[in-house]
């Protein structure tokens, strides 16, 4: 079980309010990702749940019980840190066994659980090594192993992949998703990388300046961002957010259109422009097109087959079915 409820939880450091009062429910077994730019308070929020920071107001309930003033050790949560935070003076076996030793389990049970975790994470051959003798990916697996042996109510991940190189990151991303499918335990995952958020989450919580901007499944957020911040943050490359007379035509302050929802043509279309830099990914090509109607260049996705040179004249046409409209406050208009 691992249902976490935040009720008007807030956090201030001295005079500075990092997280204004916030409500959030994380359902049992759900993979929830907190995503946002750096400094948005996502790590602080995770640390509040963990108990590593005291909240300045509100209540945190874990499985119905008020955990607001419960020390981290007693919350039944396990955490995986960005820096792995392994105990450098202990072997991998002792690292993984540490929480069990603290829980005063008997040695037979400890060995059984450590061997079980090592088998799941392919760490069997490394149990007698020290963390210093392991690669980044292996260290991260040890950190995860140390978390799973406790059979916690929920796992908390604080940017666990950001110290790994790109190739390893994709692999570990899959491993963590796989682990979640197998264990069916609540996971709360903090990242600044919206690709990680999109690929792993059941539910994404987009945070900005300590506030929840939107909560929803990855596709809900992608298809119907509640405001311009979410629209610009979720999706890669970014949604084109356009202002001016063209937006006014659609009775909006801002209109948004994703790169894949713009048709590009050399002959005719709604907006005339000039091709700038093209990014060829093989399957797709992203064109950066400077249109006369807008100060900022637009990003357009086209098939990898299309070839238009630098400086070529093109015409863009947004797909009206996938046009997002936002008002003066940046809120979505339906």
């Amino acid at each position, binding site marked *: 079980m691992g249902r976490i409820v935040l009720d008007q939880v807030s956090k201030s450091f001295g005079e500075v309010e990092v997280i204004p009062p916030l409500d959030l429910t994380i359902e049992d077994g759900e993979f929830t990702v907190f995503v946002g730019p750096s400094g948005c308070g996502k790590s602080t929020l995770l640390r509040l749940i*963990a108990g*590593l920071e005291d909240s300045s107001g509100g209540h945190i309930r874990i499985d119905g019980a008020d955990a607001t003033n419960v*020390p*981290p*050790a*007693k919350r039944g*949560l*396990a*955490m995986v*840190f*960005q*820096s792995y*935070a*392994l*105990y*450098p*003076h202990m072997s991998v076996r002792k690292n993984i066994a*540490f*929480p069990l030793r*603290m*829980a005063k389990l008997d040695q037979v049970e400890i060995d059984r659980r450590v061997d079980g975790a090592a088998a799941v994470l392919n760490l069997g051959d490394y149990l007698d090594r020290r963390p210093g003798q392991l690669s980044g990916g292996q260290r991260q697996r040890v950190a995860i192993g*140390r978390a799973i042996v*406790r059979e916690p109510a929920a796992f908390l991940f604080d940017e666990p992949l950001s110290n790994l190189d790109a190739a390893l990151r994709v692999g570990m991303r899959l491993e963590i998703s796989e682990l979640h499918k197998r264990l069916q335990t609540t996971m709360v995952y903090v990242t600044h990388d919206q690709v990680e958020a999109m690929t792993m989450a059941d539910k994404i919580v987009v945070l900005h300046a300590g506030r929840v901007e939107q909560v929803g499944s990855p596709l809900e957020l992608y298809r119907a961002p509640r405001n311009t911040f979410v629209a610009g943050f979720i999706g890669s490359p970014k949604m084109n957010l356009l202002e001016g007379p063209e937006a006014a035509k659609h009775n909006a302050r801002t209109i948004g259109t994703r790169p894949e929802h713009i048709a590009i043509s050399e002959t005719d279309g709604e907006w005339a422009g000039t091709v700038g830099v093209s990014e060829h990914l093989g399957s797709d090509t992203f064109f950066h097109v400077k249109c006369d109607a807008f100060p900022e260049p637009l990003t357009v996705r086209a098939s990898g087959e299309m070839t238009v040179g630098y400086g070529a004249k093109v015409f863009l046409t947004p797909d009206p079915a996938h046009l997002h409209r936002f008002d003066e406050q940046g809120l979505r208009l339906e």
Partner: protein
Amino acid sequence: MARAATSQRKVLNTALAWAVGFLIFFPILWTILTSFKTEAQAIASPPIFLNFDWTLENYAVVQERSNYMRFLWNSIIIAGGSTILGTIIAIPAAWSMAFVPSKRTKDILLWMLSTKMLPAVGVLYPIYLLFIKMGLLDSRAGLVIVLMLINLPIIVWMLYTYFREIPGEILEAARMDGATLKDEILYVLTPMAIPGIASTLLLNFILAWNEAFWTLNLTAANAAPLTAFIASYSSPEGLFYAKLSAASTMAIAPILILGWFSQKQLVRGLTFGAVK
């Protein structure tokens, strides 16, 4: 050209370092040499460097006149006891300053160090009276306490700088793993800081061993350590340089040997945090 200049500089630097090293070591060397001279040769003018009649007579006399082992034992207990007691108190103090600092932590550290700036003699009278009241005069327990208090600021400072190098996330991980504060300090922080704690112990042992103000003023016969043993030879009955030197050599020998074997630890301890 440039290469020649660099190597020339290297030679010069090395020579300079040796010269300074020799200058610092000279008094100790002279003491050791003097301890092997006769009293007459010890005060001869011009001084005799090596060309004298080597004798062990002074050591024999010193052995005969005083109970070296008792002084040595007192020194070990006082220096060791004050260092261990100080470290036990300083570990939690340094832990809190390094990992849960408050706005005043820096001030507290400076304030603690400022107590070292007060001349010891300034508090001699009150401490002496306290010692009489509490029956601690000329007791090893009393000296252990006083020397511990005197070195505590240094121990806390040294441990603080070591602990600051340990990533706080590891301690947080221990907390998440269910460790109590005691477990965290005992099983995670202390083992990780072993090199730092070892240098701290060593340096403070040496400081306490060499401490000569309180050990001389607060002891008479029972608790007197090696400092008192040396002092007893710089006596009003006349100048016996050779015997004084023999006593001094015997007093510093244990610590000199200890220091020699733990040079690496000591240097690391003294420069830790200064060089990255």
